[in-house]
């Protein structure tokens, strides 16, 4: 461990010295990976723009004239070393939005705190048992004047400004801000090459090791039985329905695997928020054309 860190320090110092002397533009020190690092860094996949594989999915919603769809590979979970099947078009209003880190932070903090109810409660001087009577008379006893044995000054007395009762930290961010947070998270995953689109979740065996090997190899409603069994015991690979997609999970997990149906569902739901009216009555009640 020490040797590794020392090597890192030494090498970065040397590199900085070299770069300042030679004038070349080297990577900044926080982005450089030392060669003796344990664990393989994922190789950047080639971008699918210049490939001759067919485009297997076009976007359903209309794309604005000045934007082009984002493209990514379509893969299979069938075997360890299968080539990508084709290229998939992704809507730019969901997968290429400007990445606002402040919105992402706000949504992540909201997700953590809006469910929080802190049950911390301590007794105040009124709630602690006893302490109704004045312990000794006001004047003449020689001791400090007190009104009750349970005031905050006393040992065993109540707490003056302690936490009072279950407090709720509930608040709601506007719906459009939360939707924008999801879009930004998806854009970030795509831009950082951590998004994998898959045609279906069929895997050949229910063995958890198959999935782990797949993840290491690839450096990637109702679910098929195999994948449910495979992910049951695994802590690092988790499976959720498309409606459960949220910013906290996307930030916590390194890469995201979506099926084609999930992509279609997400695009439909997220783009609707750009073209909807302000709600006349809550959206949980029926409208004629909810997505």
């Amino acid at each position, binding site marked *: 461990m020490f040797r590794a860190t020392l090597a890192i320090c030494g090498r970065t110092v040397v590199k900085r010295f070299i770069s300042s002397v030679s004038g070349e533009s080297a990577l900044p020190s926080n982005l450089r990976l030392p060669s003796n690092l344990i664990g393989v860094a994922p190789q950047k996949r080639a971008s699918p723009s210049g490939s001759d594989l067919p485009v297997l999915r076009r976007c359903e919603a209309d794309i*604005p004239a000045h934007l082009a769809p984002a493209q990514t590979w379509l893969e299979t979970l069938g075997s360890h070393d299968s080539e990508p099947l084709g290229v998939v078009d992704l809507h730019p209003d969901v997968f290429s939005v400007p990445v606002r880190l402040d919105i992402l932070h706000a949504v992540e903090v909201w997700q953590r705190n809006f469910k929080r109810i802190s049950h911390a409660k301590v007794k105040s001087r009124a709630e602690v048992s006893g302490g109704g009577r004045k312990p000794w008379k006001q004047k003449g006893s020689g001791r400090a004047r007190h009104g009750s044995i349970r005031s905050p000054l006393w040992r065993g007395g109540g707490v003056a400004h302690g936490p009072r009762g279950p407090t709720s930290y509930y608040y709601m961010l506007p719906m459009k801000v939360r939707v924008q947070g999801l879009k930004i998270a998806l854009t970030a995953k795509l831009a950082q090459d951590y998004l994998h689109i898959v045609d279906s979740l069929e895997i050949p065996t229910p063995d958890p090791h198959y999935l782990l090997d797949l993840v290491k190899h690839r450096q990637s409603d109702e679910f098929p039985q195999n994948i449910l069994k495979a992910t049951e015991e695994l802590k690092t690979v988790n499976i959720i329905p498309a409606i459960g997609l949220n910013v906290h999970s996307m930030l916590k997990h390194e890469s995201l695997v979506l099926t084609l149906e999930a992509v279609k569902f997400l695009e439909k739901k997220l783009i609707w928020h750009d073209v909807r*009216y302000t709600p006349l009555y809550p959206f949980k009640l029926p409208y*004629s054309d909810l997505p």
Partner: protein
Amino acid sequence: MFCCPSSLSEEREMSASVRSMSLTVCRAARVAYRAFNPVTRSLTTGACLRTESNPAEGSRGFIESTEEFRFVERLVPPSRIPAPPKHEGPAPSGWIPQSATPPSLPYMIRRSRMHNVPVYSDIKHGNQHSTLLRKIEGDIWTLNKDVKEFLLGLTGKEPPTQVNEVTGTIRIKGQFDKELKDWLLKKGF
């Protein structure tokens, strides 16, 4: 409602009639509930499928039918803003649609969700007028330069502007919303 029957047989009859009454009440309630429930369930799933049930002659003498629900369905409002109808040139109200091909400039200004140009005027403290230009994509600094040039030609002095690259907005000191709207419409945004 309690009445104490004198003999045992009367009691049994009483209880039987009460029981049959309660059963009919339950059955009627369940029928009414079922009449309302299936159609609302189909609406909430979003698909406008109506179960065309044959008006069944119930043993009670009323007909169950879901055909008339179309009078309710046509009142339910849409949630999406419709695309405006195609006009050749300006509409009678003065609204001009966005040009089909985006102008070949390094920046792009999208329309709002109601298909209008996103230029808004703002007043603070009753005397501070500013104009906000929103939904800017692309090279915002070139647009800033163009806006300043245009307003210099218009008023003779260059108004201070505030460019926010993160949100893609430009705030201009002074009230120029009509002029900026016409200028952007002439450009084709």
